[in-house]
């Protein structure tokens, strides 16, 4: 039972255009969300996060949007660059007790074509 879902296994975008990666969640207790990027044979690298008290967070070319009523978040990368080609994971956590664990989606493989 996937609590965090990334329904698009892959996405292909032209260099310079916008990449939009989507993530849906089912647990209404989730209140903190993160995006990670992963290259082959490397560990995930933190990109950007958002708390449920916000609906948008921006860091350079990366913006995350959160729609709590729809239980949906998205990562926008603009402009996309070939070096952005990687697998992108959405992760979430809730504030219960000592909870620090992240619940992960299965990832979306992004290919940015020159």
């Amino acid at each position, binding site marked *: 039972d996937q609590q965090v879902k990334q329904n698009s296994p892959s996405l292909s975008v032209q260099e310079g255009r916008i990449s939009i990666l989507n993530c849906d969640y089912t647990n209404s207790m989730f209140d903190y969300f993160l995006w990670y990027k992963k290259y082959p044979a490397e560990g995930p690298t933190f990109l950007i996060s958002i708390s449920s008290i916000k609906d948008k967070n921006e860091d350079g070319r990366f913006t995350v949007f959160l729609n709590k009523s729809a239980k949906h978040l998205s990562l926008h990368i603009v402009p996309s660059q070939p070096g952005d080609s990687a697998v992108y994971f959405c992760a979430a956590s809730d*504030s219960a007790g000592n909870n620090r664990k992240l619940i992960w989606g299965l990832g979306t493989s992004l290919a940015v074509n020159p």
Partner: protein
Amino acid sequence: GAGVSQSPSNKVTEKGKDVELRCDPISGHTALYWYRQSLGQGLEFLIYFQGNSAPDKSGLPSDRFSAERTGGSVSTLTIQRTQQEDSAVYLCASSMGGRSQPQHFGDGTRLSIL
């Protein structure tokens, strides 16, 4: 280096053997996490340490799995009597400890059980 270091990077062993995986977190990071990623799956939480204690062991799949952390630094994940389904990439992450602190990952140990 300054990142999370995991060893070995690859481990091949026979079914039934015990294995130990090691994680050196980023210096000063009080929180340490173990995850695993099986083929085609997302990251699965195993255990979380705050200092030397483990407030959340809920992800350990069976009593064959155990982990310890000493001196608030290095952690070892031990799998006894390995089974083929234990084959996965085992990832370690560390953070400053607060929920809003992103987890920084090592490159993982790829474990293959023959």
